[in-house]
């Protein structure tokens, strides 16, 4: 289907199903029960899942395929965000042009950064991208305040009158898609469950599906093979008469455009942007997402992004009272012991859990969660096979 082979089609359909049905899947617990806080099916978080999914998919095209570890990808996300908000402020309140501007501007900026940074490789490349990103952050924070709003960032204000949209004087315009507001949607209550379907989420979800499809095509294309060649042995590639530079630069720009798309979508969902979006920890976050999920795999980055954003928003909300509720079935002394044992790892301490998990993944599972899944599957398969073999041995008549 669509030029994909059978396995990829299945994968794509699974992702398609999961994304479109996310409001159901992420809300497995009825409202009002103790488990309801684990529901992630509210629009704000679902949007973040898919947007950071796009960001990580793009990063994976660069890091997963070519092995170039960029520590400055948040800069492209930030540039995309600023482009999108200016389009909303000046041009039209429709989000589609805003997102297109975001992609184009982020692409142009990544072309510039990539052209310079890709003259070096290894850790030098990482430091160069980091330096560019930190410079963009510092400039957006201070000197470029007329363009970026400095520390406070940019929002749509009552004084903005976009060229193509009819906004009354003093009215604060809202981002829309063909006239429908991003926040619109409908709620559906079924029994104890409440599901929210949100237009903004579905726009972001469709964007992610397109991004995911393109990434599958890139992975399977001759261009993708070239990128893998860059990773495995540049020298051999040179000897066969091919220059790695244009391929890596193309990968860099593509992943920059993905970051721009993610930045544009962020602004479309929540019309504001600040410079902290470009800080180097934001770049570090997408690195963690990609590695945690599995660099160089198709599904890995999406998984990693979902995983980290879930942690950030759900696990960080667990407080002492909730823990006491959980362990209430234990005798009094044990309850307190368990709570004080678990508490450092949840709530405000979720970064600690994340760090430990990240370490474990890097040490034991260099392929990330995807490799973990595959190993588990392999384990079961081998077990069932070997047990079959045992039976076969057992039933064979002895000579």
């Amino acid at each position, binding site marked *: 289907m669509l030029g994909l082979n059978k396995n990829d089609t299945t994968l794509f359909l699974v992702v398609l199903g999961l994304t479109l049905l996310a409001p159901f899947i992420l809300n497995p617990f009825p409202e009002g029960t103790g488990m309801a806080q684990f529901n992630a099916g509210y629009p704000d978080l679902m949007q973040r899942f898919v947007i950071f999914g796009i960001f990580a998919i793009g990063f994976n095209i660069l890091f997963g395929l070519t092995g170039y570890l960029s520590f400055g990808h948040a800069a492209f996300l930030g540039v995309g965000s600023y482009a999108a908000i200016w389009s909303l402020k000046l041009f039209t309140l429709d989000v589609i042009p805003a997102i297109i501007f975001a992609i184009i501007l982020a692409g142009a900026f990544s072309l510039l950064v990539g052209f310079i940074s890709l003259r070096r490789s290894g*850790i*030098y490349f990482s430091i160069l991208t980091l*330096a560019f990103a930190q*410079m963009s952050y510092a400039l957006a924070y201070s000197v470029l305040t007329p363009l970026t709003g400095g520390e406070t960032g940019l929002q749509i204000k009552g004084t903005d009158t976009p060229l193509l949209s009819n906004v009354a004087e003093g009215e604060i315009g809202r981002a829309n898609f063909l006239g429908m507001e991003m926040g619109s949607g409908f709620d559906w209550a079924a029994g104890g469950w409440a599901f929210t379907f949100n237009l903004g989420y579905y726009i972001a979800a469709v964007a992610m599906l397109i991004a995911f499809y393109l990434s599958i095509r890139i992975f399977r294309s001759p261009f993708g093979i070239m990128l893998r060649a860059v990773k495995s042995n540049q020298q051999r590639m040179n000897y066969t008469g091919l220059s790695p530079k244009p391929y890596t630069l193309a990968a860099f720009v593509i992943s920059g455009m993905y970051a721009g798309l993610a930045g544009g979508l962020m602004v479309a969902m929540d019309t504001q942007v600040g410079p902290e979006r470009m800080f180097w920890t934001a770049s570090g976050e997408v690195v963690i997402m990609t590695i945690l999920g599995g660099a160089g795999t198709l599904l890995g980055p999406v998984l990693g992004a979902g995983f980290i954003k879930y942690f950030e928003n759900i696990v960080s909300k667990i407080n002492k009272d909730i823990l006491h509720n959980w362990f209430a079935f234990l005798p009094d002394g044990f309850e307190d012991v368990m709570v004080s044992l678990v508490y450092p790892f949840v709530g405000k301490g979720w970064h600690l859990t994340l760090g430990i998990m990240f*370490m474990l993944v890097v040490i034991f599972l260099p392929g990330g969660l995807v490799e973990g899944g595959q190993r588990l599957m392999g384990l079961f398969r081998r077990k069932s096979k070997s047990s079959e073999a045992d039976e076969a041995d057992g039933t064979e008549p002895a000579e």
Partner: protein
Amino acid sequence: MDQFIVQILNGLDKGSAYALIALGLTLIFGTLGVVNFAHGALFMLGSFCAVIMSRILSASHKVAVPGETDFLGNPLMRDQPYVYDWFGEAAGATIVDWAVPISILFAIPVMIGVGFIMERGLIKHFYKRPHADQILVTFALAIVLQEVIKYFFGANPIQTPAPEAFDGSLDFGSWLGFDPLTIMYPYWRLVYFLFAALIIAGVFAFLQFTTFGMVVRAGMADRETVGLLGIDIDKRFTLMFGIAAAVAGLAGVMYAPIVAPNYHMGMDFLVLSFVVVVVGGMGSLPGAVAAGFLLGILESFASMPWMVDKLPGINQIIIYLVAIIILLTRPRGLMGRKGVMED
């Protein structure tokens, strides 16, 4: 002219911190070939050694103040550190006051121990893995370390003052024949600079003039041959890792009075010290030190008012700008050795 000297002086203390961290990073990279992203966290741990020590020294109990009562008629209680009991009032007060310098003694064994555990427990297993893996695992370790510190000490900076004797500033200008009060330099920053210079000199002397140092240098140049000569080079490199950790830790201890320790100060310094290492040249110890001071001083020059007037924002980006220019024009950094991470 006096402005010029002020900026050089201002750059010295930050430059000293950069130089010390970069020195440790380069020691680790040069000996073990590992890119250690947790080095900033070691600096932060050092800083918290000072916090812990000052808390230990001022651990106190309640005693009654003789001859005074509170409004209920009970004897008035006040906190009295245990050291007052042990060493007497005057000596005790001095010890509490000098907590930061005293914590150097505490920090050295602690940091060498931390470095030893880190190397044997984690980094040892990453020698054969690609540099990207080393970066990632040490980055993760840095997150874990800083979160542990955050759990125990909270997210707010903790003021850790220098001894009272170092309060105030040195009127440096009057020495050089300028008007008084034009070039002022806080005493503690001067101490920090001298301390950093001492440590740097110590590390270089250790490597240059001891047999141990000679073996380590030989190992840095050609690890296999040293191994073939029957020397257990791994053991010595592990110790070097401990020393590098101690250097970072000491840089942190003495920096505590300048910037109040907080859990993310390591990350703030890490990015800049990597830039410093790369500018100085991967694997070059003199390069790391020189680049540390150079970038520290450049940064303070760039924040001079007339500089900021002419090129707004230059103070924010100067280090990165210099790094980009040097990396693109001098592939090996300022003093990089041939053949070390040149691609």
